[in-house]
């Protein structure tokens, strides 16, 4: 069981207190009606599946209950950084 650093609690907490929330930094369009079907499809379904660093959302559901973002290496399952919702990805990476 991994430990995940909750950026709100500022503690490393056990994985079973958290739930996974999919890829991070996919903002819901402000005006969905303005999107083409293809653009809407991209928003809804198209996700990165990198081998390596992946920015994703987690929720400390059995702790402070906050959603936050994390960069995790999908090869080693190691978190390189976690940060609060709304903050830019600290390592400057994409996807």
């Amino acid at each position, binding site marked *: 069981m991994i430990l995940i650093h909750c950026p*709100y609690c500022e503690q490393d907490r056990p994985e*079973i207190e958290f739930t996974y929330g999919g890829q991070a930094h996919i903002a819901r369009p402000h005006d969905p009606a303005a999107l083409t079907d293809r653009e809407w499809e991209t928003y809804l379904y198209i996700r990165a599946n990198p081998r390596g660093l992946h920015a994703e959302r987690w929720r400390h559901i059995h702790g*402070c209950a906050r959603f936050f973002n994390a960069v995790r290496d999908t090869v080693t399952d190691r978190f390189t950084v976690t940060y609060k919702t709304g903050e830019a990805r600290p390592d400057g990476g994409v996807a």
Partner: protein
Amino acid sequence: MLEIAPLAKSGADLAVGTKPHIGAIIGRPVTLSPAAPHSRWSLRARDPALLGSALGRALPDRIGTVLDGIARLGPDEWYALLEAGTALPVLTGLPVSVVDVSARALGFTVSGEGARLALERGCPLDLARLAPGSATRTVFETVEIQVWPTAPDAFHIEVWRSFAPWLWHALAEAIV
């Protein structure tokens, strides 16, 4: 036609104890007791100062700490565990949320030299580092709980009502 699994049936026979369960875990005494009824409130606000002044109460600053019966569970969330019957003003028209959840949870106290061992059977936190004056949501195996250390060897546990029978027995099982 789905039938209820026999295991689920036996699980349904569990009930929260009405009297303290006294025993020991690995030779260290532990008492598991139902806690007295409490007044419980979920308090939410973006601005702690506004919430505090509207309630007329001081709120703890740091997430995971307790002040006068109120724990800060998250950046915009506090949980008040007060003497039964204590009413908080149900504020309206303010950017705050005050919700009475007195009946939502039951409290247990786990105390004695073996209290921490009893909880560590299912709680993954390092409870030796959770000092009195702190409080946090966490889990006992699959069940969400709140742990409030009240003394070096005593804990108050909050658990949602319907999970309480399972938790009581999961704790009591090892206290022999």
